[in-house]
């Protein structure tokens, strides 16, 4: 079982976490025109990279959402960042 670092609670077992998506995906501005292709890409296209990945995870116990950097091959945890931008 893997251990992930929650910015709030520290190192916890993976079963407390929930994968929320790949990091870096921005929701298209739906008040304007969004093509079928762009919308489909937003919904379904995942990079699913082999190796180093940046992902958004939620720690279900405290509901904190954060960015986890890890290696999808070796399962090594490389680091984590706050999701919110305003924190120094």
């Amino acid at each position, binding site marked *: *079982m893997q251990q992930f670092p929650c910015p709030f609670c520290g190192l916890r077992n993976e079963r407390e976490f929930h994968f*929320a998506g790949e990091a870096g995906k921005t929701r298209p501005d739906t*008040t304007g025109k969004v093509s*079928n292709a762009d*919308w489909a890409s*937003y919904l379904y296209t995942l990079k699913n990279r082999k190796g180093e990945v940046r992902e958004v995870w*939620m720690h279900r116990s405290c509901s904190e959402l954060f960015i986890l950097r890890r290696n999808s091959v070796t399962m090594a945890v490389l680091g984590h960042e706050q999701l919110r931008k305003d924190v120094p």
Partner: protein
Amino acid sequence: MSGFRVNAGGLIDRNKPLNFTFDGRKYSGFQGDTLASALLANRVRVMGRSFKYHRPRGVWGAWFDDPNAIFDVTLGDVTLPNCSATTTPLVDGMHARAVNAFPSARFDIKGVLDRFSRFMPAGFYYKTFMWPNWHLFEPMIRKLAGLGHLDPAVINDYQSGQHHIRCDLLVVGGGATGLAAARVAAEAGQSVILVDDHPEFGGGLYRQGCDVEGQKPASWVKEHCQAITAAGGKLMTATTAFGVYDHNMVALAQDKGFGKAPDLWRVRAKRILMATGAMDRPITFINNDRPGVMSVDGAMEFLGRYDVLAGRNIALLSNNSFAQSAATVLQEAGAEVRLLDATQGQARALGGKVLRGVELNGKRISCDTLLASGGLTPVVHLWRHAGGKLDWNAEIAAFVPGKALQGMVAAGAANGTFDLGHALAEARAVATGKTTAKQPRTYQITPLWPEIGSKGRQWIDFQHDVTLKDVELAARENYVSVEHLKRYTTLGMASDQGKTSNMAGLAAMAALQGRAIPEVGTTTFRPPFVPVALELYHGARRGQVFNPLKRLVLENQHRAAGAALGEYGGWLRPGWYGMQDITREVLKARGAAGIFDASPLGKIEVMGPDAAKFVNFIYYNTISTLKVGAIRYGFMLTEGGIVYDDGVIARLAENRFVISCSSSHVDGVSAALESWRQDGNDPDRIFIHNTTQNWPTVTVAGPKARAIVEQLKLGIDLADFPPMTWRDGVFQEAGVRVSRVSFTGDVSYEISIPVALAPALWDGALAVGEPLGAGPIGLEALSVLRAEKGYIIIGKDTDGEVMPHDLGFGIPRTRKKAAFVGDRGLHTDKANSKDRRQLVGLRVPDSADAIATGAHLVETSGAGFRSIGIVTSSYDSPTLGHPIALALVERGATRLGEELTVWHMDQQSRATVVAPVFLDPKGERLDAG
């Protein structure tokens, strides 16, 4: 002549004799014996039958590497199937029976199968029973297959304890290497755990028959154990490290005695030291599976640990330098030993159930026991579990752990360091993170692998009866990858998972293809290292505790009122009260009022300066225009535009809302709200607080609801309380929130109250309601009431394709200007299709039966039918006196009045499409309050 006790030593306690039976015969052994060692001491040679050909088999190894002796064991009222005889400690009163053999291992009536073996090569079943249909033969073949018999009786208290523990260093394997390493690490201040699967530490020391660092093995082991304990280390015997998982988690199965479930320890170790030793590998020669053919290591182990000498007249067939010292030890114990060089030519075991001798290069040597050693194979399973690579070491003709892993090291025989002195030096170095210089090894081996094309039946996998010829056949049929070879021939797929067979199998395949062994590679090593009870994995998490039900604050009140409680969306809720009479409860609710517990309804507060903008984004419906004091019904969608949840939202203040989602979606909606709050919004300007469990809700619904609530004296002017608004009230000095939201189509008051006063409110509502003809109703009646009004349940009346405009809520889709979750998803080609399934009602004649829920609506298409929709809810309506149904039907909204064909279980009937509201379409009952 066969095995016997030497009375020289070993770890058995001769003061504690134990009686047991095997295949119905009585035997005795000693405390400290395994079933196998006790049988061997009683001169029993045939301990099992092979899986396919029912060949008689004796023990090959003395521990986890034995593939042959597998017993169903009964002790008292517990029977466990498929116990390995070599690893099951003997207990007084055991009754053991060889699996896959009838009436006994010695006289097995299916032994005749071996005569037909030439017609049953690898793939025999696949090829033979193809025509006309495998399934015709399957039941018969399944009866032939399988090993032990499962006793259907439930074993009392068979529950695995679950432990979690951390340490600096976990040492796996309590032989000389493990003990030396654990001691050094513990004395250097590390927190150390040392585990070994035997009941005693010492590993291979007892079988080697030599002193260690000037001491007898037992005293050296004792001294080290004491030192480790004194330095704060933890010692665990009879505990198998059966798997290494991500981030250095090692799973240990701790034996708790026969018939008791093992305990599971999840160890999170900063470093793991693999000191798992090495095992002997078989030599592939003719009839190498005969009883009496044993591994050298196995025979030495039986002697050193259990004081059992495998035979009196021993031939020792080997290709490596350890043979000489083994021969010396066996001779000292009283055996005659002939040392034979296995590399000199093809060997053949002579005899059947009783071994008569061995033929080497045409020369016959008589013996009662033939020990074989094809070289040592380091036990590297855990290394591979952890993702470590293996290197081929040609000098010792074996795979050894490759490049060091982060957090894991190997030492001793497991690392290919077979010399005791070198292993101890290596152990002491790596325990504290140092390395050792390579030392010249004394171990010499002449590689010896299966000889392709050689004559006779030569076993590679003993338990599954895979011979060299089967491997050759697989190669001819192009199953050349070791993974394909394994699956085609079942080589390595027996309960020992190829511990003895994999090396010979892949060496044979390498030779067949003219490739080097490391090029062919190994099959994947996966946990568990040895079979473990499934029980181990769940411990107490079973039955009710597997997925605990959420319990209502008012459960005692419901029980007192005679509620039939059942699981609804994860909650234990009343299905009905008293005798199951849903009609009576429905009519009571329609005639007077139904009083029900709506506590599981979501109560998720959304607060903060950006709350209004946020909920407007979350909801399909426009929420920004909602006035303080008002309530609105709406949908939450997925980004694909699919209806995820429906419910109401109340505006408590300018910047404060309460989302009342459906009962089973509270956790999901909370998580979704948190996701959107933190991802894409300023989390300091929005706060989400799930208060569902803080506010039990008592709902009073029906024509007499207002009269009842009036008498509860909540301090609210009910004359000025229109539908879809909420009011603050007071009940016994506690603040309550009352919402006029209806799920039945009648006047309805949802009263949410702090936990402490919920029972008083419930009792009060019943006390004033019952004289008026009202009473408690359960979820089943509620389900009928809402269907009469055409109110949907998400997930029952909708599925993963339904969008809001399919349910008659199309306006926000075209009019809402602000962005909202799922907005773009509502305008795809699919969403715009004219053929979407839409919610409708169905009517059948008054005297007809209700349509089955799940029935299809079909139209004729060529010779067959095509489904154009499904019935999602269907009831006999007590209020209306006829059946009603809700359905999703293609272009349903355009079909009002149309008669459709209903298809269910090959029966056809007719139903008419109507609007999905059966009761009070104008809403007069709803407004009556």
